[in-house]
């Protein structure tokens, strides 16, 4: 059974790019362009993993992580945070909110795929 990944990012070009790459690697992909929708889709679609950005409208990535962890139906979903912020304090804040992995844009797709695999394995 194909694993389902939810991408939450407000950059449509990036979402499209990442979707193609993930689909070509055998994943089903759904997406949301802001945190509110992301939370809603996560509750409805029950993804196996969520990839999310930090800076987004309505609810930012850190707040979204917190809400995922507070919600019974989403608290165990692995979270990978992708950001252009690339600073140490962002990393620690993300880890504090329960992010499983933190990757800085631009990244190598192979590295991301590796991290997705690892995160899903750990949650089994």
């Amino acid at each position, binding site marked *: 059974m194909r694993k389902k990944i939810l991408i939450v990012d407000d950059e449509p070009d990036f979402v499209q790019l990442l979707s193609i790459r993930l689909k070509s690697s055998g994943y089903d992909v759904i997406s949301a362009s802001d945190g509110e929708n992301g939370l809603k889709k996560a509750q409805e679609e029950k993804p196996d993993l969520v990839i999310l950005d930090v800076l987004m409208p309505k609810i930012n990535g850190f707040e979204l992580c917190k809400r995922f962890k507070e919600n019974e139906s989403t608290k165990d979903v692995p979270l990978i945070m992708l950001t252009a912020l*690339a*600073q*140490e304090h962002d990393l620690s804040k993300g880890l504090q909110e329960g992010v499983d992995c933190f990757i800085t*844009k*631009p990244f190598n797709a192979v590295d991301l795929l590796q991290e997705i695999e690892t995160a899903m394995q750990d949650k089994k």
Partner: protein
Amino acid sequence: MEDKAKGEYLEQIKLLKKRIAELEISDSERKQQRDIRFLATVVRDSDDAITIQDFEGRITAWNRGAGQMYGYNEKEALGMSIEHLTPPGNVAEHKELTRRLIAGEAVTSFETRRVAKDGRILDVWLTVTKVMDDTGKPIGIASTERDITERKKAEEKLSQALEDEIRSREIATSMLEDNNRIREELERKLKELKQTQSMLVQSEKLASLGKLVADMAHEVNNPLMIISGNAQLSLLDGSLNEELKNNLRIIHEECNRAKNIIQRLLMFSRPGRGEQKPLDINRSIESVVKLLEHQFGLSNVKMSLQFAKGLPRVVMDEKQFQEVVMNLVSNARDAMPEGGEIAINTSLDGAYLKAEIKDSGVGMDDMTLARIFEPFFTTKEKGTGLGLSICYGIIKGLNGKIQFDSRPQKGTTVRIWLPIAGEAPHV
């Protein structure tokens, strides 16, 4: 008979000689009397007051000059006590003078004061002498008194004028000294203010640049991701020829290079704290020096170390500290294209550890100094302009301080202060 005649003759001669002697005495007396008359005229007509008093202090002689000077006529003065002419403050002095003259002591001229009939106090120059009778017995005191009141006043005025002049000059000199001191103090304060202002402007400028860099990192990393991601995605297409694949790889690598530049820029704006642990800065500098020693030697650059012993540890990330040292010594090397020496020393400066890196290179002018921490500002042909920005970011992130002293052709000294207790140094 002959004897009788001879006797008479001798008697005659004797009488003649006696007569001649009498005539000579008479002549001498006349001459003496004439001299006395002359002297009496001089005494009478003198403008100086010439008086005689007995030892009881009664005036027995009074000339015209005395009358003019003191306002008493001869009739009033004769028999009058000399104390009428003596101000109360000088009575004791007069008594002492009389005592000394009676005792036969020599008394020279001196300055004293007299009082006139109308109460005016006069300054006089007094010359006294003892008067004796025909038997040589002292009978009184003759005195000559010259009125020097006006001269004294003139002298006092002159003296006062001189004192005023001296005081004025002293005041002027003192004011000049004060002015010089105040000017020097003001110049020093002004210089300090300018330096502080310059540092503040630089600090504010760098702070806004830091924010700009952080914003830019976000804005640039996103499109870089799209470019890089698309290049990576395209590389998965097996139908592409090698040339195209190579071009895509170049795009991907350049995106990574751009990402690294941004990472280094972020080290300037908000460096992370890295792996915080107690650091022996002497040992850490030494390991950087060992690493660079051979390479620097090829450029005729020697490094000398002078470390203070027993320095306390600084809690910071060693890699960051070594990056700072590496950047600073590399700049020092680049400033000495003909070779030279880099002197590195460490010391304890209050609550801070101080490291100083000094070169004898080309130095910098004020315009360059004002911009050295700006990202991408460089004077080197192949420099990135990020080295000192990163040093600044790291030191600032530790609440430390970095300061450059430099003049064209006079070399450069860089000082860094690392707080032991986490406070910024007051320098």
